[in-house]
């Protein structure tokens, strides 16, 4: 299995030729230089695509909410208003930036950057396809959980630094909500780690297959409940409705970013929308089969075999199929997140804490134990294969 972009690309002749040429002209081994350049370019592409997805996320949010409420939504800028996010971006850059005189200036500036760093750093392990993963770290999911919690620090700092009561309330709520909901989401991640037997994204997705019965969500009943716990907790962690208490606009003006205007607010919004995508991607990777394509089409071996294509070309086709599979599932989940936001009313603070500590955490702990017992009792076989085996033995005895 190809782990990162560079190892994947190094199979092509062009890259080796480029390395050889560079080594010759520069007079030293250019391997590291080329891989650095490849990483830099691919990171730029990923960041660009993610920023566009974040921008389109704001557009999708407004358009879908308009649909659900029988309105038109943005329809002036570009066809169907699809360029609205660019207009918003230009407006944000042009808007006057105000820092309140009572604010802690350094922290005020630091907070949105913290959010951006936390979200962008998580992009390194998002598994777009088996070859298109920036870094297949051996601690993949652990790293992701750690980096994602930087966003909580950013939210709290933003609320604290503004020296405004609305912001302070929002920041406090944000901090307590994000840290509380980290527990159930981490516990349900651990239960999947038990099933997969590894922390890297490659291992986690490699244990699943392309068809739904091979996914971890249908592996056993505990993982099935675990998916919903993870999804609910992720909604809360990204401050999405019905858990958008930190920015509850009808009670806290706009919560932790009340005092932020212009591009600093834009950075918060961009970070939030990219984080939603990352969280959906992780849910897909852990529970919904990740980038796997049905019938092993992802390796591309079948194209070489049946159609006689060049092996690199068929591998590329396989990668494209995997990308398609990942993005289809992730964007479908993204739609569900937006759908939930415009369907369900917001929770109260005490309900939020009750839901986390009295319902989700005990259920997640139970699921964790359940998955461990399942692994021990059934040797890690999925419920589907168990039924299949039982049916085969019953059928055989007749």
């Amino acid at each position, binding site marked *: 299995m190809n782990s990162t972009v560079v190892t994947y690309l190094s199979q092509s002749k062009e890259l080796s030729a480029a390395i050889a040429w560079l080594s010759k002209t520069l007079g030293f081994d250019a391997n590291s230089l080329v891989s*650095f350049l490849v990483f830099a370019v691919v990171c730029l592409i990923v960041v660009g695509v993610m920023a566009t997805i974040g921008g389109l996320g704001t557009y999708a949010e407004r358009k879908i909410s308009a649909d659900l409420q029988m309105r038109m939504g943005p329809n002036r800028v570009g066809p169907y208003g699809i360029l609205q996010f660019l207009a918003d971006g230009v407006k944000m850059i042009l808007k006057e930036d105000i820092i309140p005189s009572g604010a802690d200036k350094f922290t005020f500036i630091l907070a949105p950057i913290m959010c951006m760093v936390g979200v962008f750093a998580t992009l390194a392990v998002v598994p777009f396809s088996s070859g298109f993963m920036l870094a297949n770290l051996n601690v993949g999911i652990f790293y992701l959980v750690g980096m994602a919690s930087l966003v909580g620090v950013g939210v709290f700092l933003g609320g604290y630094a503004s020296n405004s009561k609305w912001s302070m309330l929002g920041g406090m709520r944000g901090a307590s909500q994000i*840290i509380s909901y980290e527990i159930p989401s981490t516990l349900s991640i651990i239960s999947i780690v038990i099933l997969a037997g590894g922390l890297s994204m490659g291992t986690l997705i490699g244990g699943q297959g392309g068809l739904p019965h091979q996914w971890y969500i249908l592996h056993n009943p505990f993982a099935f409940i675990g998916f919903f716990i993870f999804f609910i907790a992720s909604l809360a962690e990204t401050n999405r409705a019905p858990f958008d208490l930190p920015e509850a606009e009808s009670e806290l003006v706009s919560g932790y970013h009340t005092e932020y205007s212009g591009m600093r607010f834009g950075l918060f919004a961009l970070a939030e929308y990219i984080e939603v995508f990352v969280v959906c991607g992780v849910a897909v990777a852990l529970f919904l089969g990740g980038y796997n394509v049905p019938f092993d089409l992802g390796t591309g071996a079948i194209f070489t075999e049946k159609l006689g294509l060049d092996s690199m070309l068929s591998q590329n086709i396989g990668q494209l199929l995997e990308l398609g599979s990942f993005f289809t599932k992730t964007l479908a989940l993204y739609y569900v997140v937006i759908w939930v936001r415009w369907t369900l009313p917001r929770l109260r603070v005490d309900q939020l804490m009750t839901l986390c500590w009295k319902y989700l955490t005990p259920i997640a702990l139970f699921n964790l134990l359940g998955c461990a017992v399942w692994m021990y009792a059934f040797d890690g076989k999925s419920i589907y294969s168990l039924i299949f085996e039982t049916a085969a033995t019953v059928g055989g005895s007749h």
Partner: protein
Amino acid sequence: MSTFNLDVYMPVVILIALALLVAGGSMLLGSVIRPHHPNKLKETAYECGEEPIGSAWANFNVRFYVVALIFIIFDVESALMFPVAAVFKKFNQIGLGGTLLLSVLTFVLVLVAGLIYCWKKGDLDWVKSFNTPQANLAKKDK
């Protein structure tokens, strides 16, 4: 086929640098082209038109602190569970799954005991005063 002995964390560093670049760049671009006419009224904290009284950095509800304390216990727990979870499958294959399962069970049960203790003590209720003995007595009197 070439080998790359590059640190796998290279993309992480590049991505963090890019995040700083995007954030810093957009702020810098903005500072060149955006208007800047500050006045005293603009720079006050927003309180729906009222003049803010006092600083927002005042004493805060202790509930948030209790939540943070409970969180730390469970966060450390999940951090300690990760390595066990990662090797569970391998241990199970070589026949040591039972030992590992037992240790996981013990570990989680101790924590569950802690959770039940917090629950009984009312630390998981957001509004604790509803459940104090005095409040319960008052309820009975009615």
